[in-house]
């Protein structure tokens, strides 16, 4: 179906369209928390007439609404990770049971059905898709995207299972408390012979002193957690030379585990690859992993840092932690927790910092830059020396709860961050949730400095039964435009244009109704949606792998899609962002022409003349047009149009 995105005519919607937001403050490479509050655009929420509102629920039979996107195929999670369909059907058939009565014996009442292991992030290599899961990884053959085939299911628990691939090496993040070196499924429960703590262990913790805001948390007197030699928190490295028999080569242990990791390929270093590890789990005891401490005032604290792992390609078994750069430090004073410190904030304002680590980092090696989504801050790093990243800028934002992930525009002039307000498990796209909370924040990036330009949030109001907030996405490589395809959990997939960083707008979407039916809640939704060689692959946490295809619409032409489809990557780890270079040919040229026609930068007569000249390969005529395009560019209405004119002229003058 086609839904007119332009029909935002209700008074309420219009008001929202012009609802501007208080915006962010910049923390320089230094520290001051500026109090300036410029206003920026927030995209409007759509109304009740949005087809995504009120879709029927269901795991595999939910209602679907889409515009500009077509679902090619969905492949449910394989056996080891699959939802318990019988239990789900039985639960759905019965009335919603009341919660167990207080005093009732534990575990005797009906339990909620299992939706299986949670699908997480995706990585791509050649014809293979690697689908991370909290309980392992699934490998799919995607040679034919309409018929993707499971090749290997790898059982190896230890969420989140963030994955990256490089050649024959597959990397997997482990942070959960149940991760075992031997990929065992039994977790690390209390060891036999050990007395489990009493149920009221927490109640014995004395309350903190009233009013003492700066007092650290009171600690109970209790024995330390026993070290476990079987535990892995960090990064597993597999050899996948034999795609049906991955072998674990080495587990690189870290103090806070690996919530995510980012593969970094240094163009200057042919012998090694690097991993930037973002950990947010509680710091492990020194007894379990030597050198780990979570004390804030310890100079070796595992807080306020990321971890850099170096992986020698010829000897991946020697992979190890080579640095824990203090990317939040003050270069002048050496203070390791500097981002939220500052002279203007008074004494005692900083015993706790929000920025204790990063959640995810996107590296853009072609520019020597990385963007860190670091809990309380968005930061920009110079990674020309990958082992020693240096902070260039840091921003904070009162509307942001949790800096989650980042995408660069291909020209490096715009940087988009996401805010995972509620951690992804909560419904944060309800009509009552502000459009600039749990949204993307789009920054202009100039000479290493970030300036907030706008917010974007998937615009359709979602139900309280659908966990929804900004999540992972990738660029769609249409030349001349910045287009992002992005996951919003049960808010579905939203494709948006942020070419004008100050006015992002939606150009396509795909959404299903809630997973739970009849007011039952079940978590899930799109974790990652990434464009790879012509298709969009989505990791649906409960439902499996989705393959989607963009369709031509008034916002996107077939020529633009054809130009994007020319970009063929041999490998894709989205957070190791590739620089896209388009071939200088007429396919690319036609995409620019369509864009210039859409924005009325070229008259219809000029467009016709251009297309005719291209069709008939009239080189002389094309050269003349190229000259006039270069001239017209100086008076183009927008910088994007000027860039398109120059790029188009460049192509047609060569042909």
């Amino acid at each position, binding site marked *: 179906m086609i839904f007119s995105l332009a029909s935002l005519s209700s008074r309420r919607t219009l008001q929202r369209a012009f609802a501007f937001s208080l915006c962010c403050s910049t923390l320089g490479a230094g520290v001051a928390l500026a109090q300036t509050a410029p206003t920026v655009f927030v995209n409007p929420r759509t109304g009740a007439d949005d087809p995504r509102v009120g879709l029927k629920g269901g795991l595999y039979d939910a209602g679907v609404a889409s515009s500009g996107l077509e679902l090619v195929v969905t492949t449910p999670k*394989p*056996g*080891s*990770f*699959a939802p318990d369909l019988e239990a789900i059907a039985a639960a759905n058939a019965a009335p919603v049971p009341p919660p167990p*009565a*207080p005093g009732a014996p*534990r575990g005797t*009442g009906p339990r*909620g*059905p*299992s939706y299986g*292991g949670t699908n997480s992030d995706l990585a791509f290599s*050649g014809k293979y898709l690697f689908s991370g899961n909290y*309980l392992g990884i699934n490998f799919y053959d995607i040679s034919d995207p309409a018929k993707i*085939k499971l*090749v*290997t*299911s790898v*059982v190896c628990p230890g*969420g989140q299972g963030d994955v990256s691939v490089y050649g*024959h090496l597959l990397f997997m993040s482990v942070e*959960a*408390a149940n991760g075992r*070196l031997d*990929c065992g*499924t039994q*977790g690390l*429960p*209390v060891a036999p012979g050990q007395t*489990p703590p009493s149920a*009221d262990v*927490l109640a014995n*913790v004395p*309350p*903190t002193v009233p009013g*003492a805001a700066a007092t*650290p*948390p009171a600690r*109970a007197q209790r024995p330390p*957690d026993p070290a476990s030699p079987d535990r892995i928190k960090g990064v597993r490295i597999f050899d996948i030379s*034999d795609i*049906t028999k*991955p072998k*674990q080569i080495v*587990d690189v242990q870290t103090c806070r585990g690996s919530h995510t990791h980012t593969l970094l390929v240094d163009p200057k270093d042919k012998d090694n690859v690097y991993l930037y590890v973002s950990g947010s*789990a*509680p710091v492990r005891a020194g007894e379990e992993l030597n050198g780990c401490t979570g004390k804030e005032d310890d100079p070796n604290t595992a807080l306020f840092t990321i971890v850099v792992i170096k992986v020698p*390609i010829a000897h991946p078994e020697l992979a190890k932690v080579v640095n824990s750069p203090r990317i939040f430090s003050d270069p002048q004073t050496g203070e390791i927790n500097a981002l939220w410190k500052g002279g*203007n*904030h*008074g004494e005692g304002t900083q015993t*706790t910092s929000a920025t204790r680590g990063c959640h995810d980092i996107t590296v853009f090696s072609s520019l020597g830059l990385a963007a860190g989504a670091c*809990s309380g801050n968005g930061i920009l790093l110079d990674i020309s020396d990958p082992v020693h990243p240096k902070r260039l800028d840091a921003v904070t934002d009162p509307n942001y709860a*949790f800096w989650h992930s980042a995408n660069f525009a291909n020209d490096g002039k715009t940087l988009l961050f996401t805010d995972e307000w509620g*951690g992804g498990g*909560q419904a944060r796209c309800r009509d009552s949730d502000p459009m600039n909370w749990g949204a993307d924040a789009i920054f202009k990036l100039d000479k290493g400095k970030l300036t907030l330009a706008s917010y974007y949030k998937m615009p359709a109001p979602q139900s309280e039964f659908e966990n929804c907030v900004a999540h992972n996405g990738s660029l769609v490589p249409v030349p001349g435009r910045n287009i992002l395809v992005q996951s919003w959990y049960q808010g579905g997939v939203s494709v948006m244009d942020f070419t004008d960083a100050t006015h992002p707008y939606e150009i396509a979407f795909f959404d299903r109704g809630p997973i739970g039916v009849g007011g039952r809640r*079940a*978590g*899930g939704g799109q974790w990652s949606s990434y464009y790879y060689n012509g298709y969009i692959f989505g990791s649906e946490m409960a439902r499996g792998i989705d393959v989607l295809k963009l369709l031509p619409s008034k916002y996107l032409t077939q020529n633009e899609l054809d130009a994007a489809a020319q970009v063929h990557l041999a490998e894709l780890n989205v957070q190791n962002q590739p620089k896209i270079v388009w071939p200088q040919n007429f396919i690319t040229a036609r995409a620019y022409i369509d864009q210039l026609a859409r924005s009325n930068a070229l008259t219809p007569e000029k467009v016709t003349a251009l297309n005719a000249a291209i069709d008939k390969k009239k080189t002389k005529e094309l050269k003349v047009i190229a000259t006039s395009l270069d001239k017209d560019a100086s008076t183009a209405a927008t910088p994007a149009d000027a860039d398109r004119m120059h790029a188009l002229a460049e192509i047609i003058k060569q042909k």
Partner: protein
Amino acid sequence: MPLSTYHGPSKSGRASKMRSGLGLASAALFCLSVTAGFCQQTTATPEGPVTVQPGAPGQQTKVLPPGTPAAPFRSPSDADIAFMRGMIMHHGQAVEMTTLMPSRSHNQDLLELGKRISISQTDEMGFMKRWLADRGIPLSDKPAMDHMAGMTGMDHSGMDHSKMAGMDHMAMDSMPAMPGMLTPQQMDALRKATGPEFDHLFLTGMIQHHTGALSMVKQLFDTPGAGQDPVLFDFTSDVDNTQQAEIDIMRHMLAKEKQ
């Protein structure tokens, strides 16, 4: 990120639905080129998908029967249950504090923050109650606690504040206080204050409150065998992140207050 579902055993999608394990024997040809290039050419596609479990580094990879559950059922630990129950009560007080704001504060920044805290903690209370219910765990093991356990976890919207106040006293009297929770005296002082005095008490009180929540998370993960449930793990991570961030924002507000 957390899922509000329980990751337990799966009955469906097992062997009957999978192709037979015969494909295992015909596992791929050897890949000789193990340099950076991924040698997909030499890897034959087996007859059907295989399920494997790698060993520890250096150990052999085992082939499993297709559909072997990757997560056998595990009951939550006592510490997990105590944490969720305690945090429901803990969150209840934070929400109650935010309900006092509209009639007592004029500070727009603070009201915005209060709105965020209110949304977060109200949602999370529902989430925690569902987590318990999905595992067949009652809000309390003691029938006598029936009334309170239900009350502290319930949605506060639309409730009369004076009744809330009374409930709070009862809760404090009959249940052990969670770390950082405001005492009845502190709650009384907050109720009686308005304007900048209220703002100050709210900020110091909520910082105290959130700091206590962080210590509860820390305590949980210092407990052997706790936090093995992925849903709980993600949830606690989010509580930790969110409240840490809010503490920071509130400290800055306190600092501004001083200026």
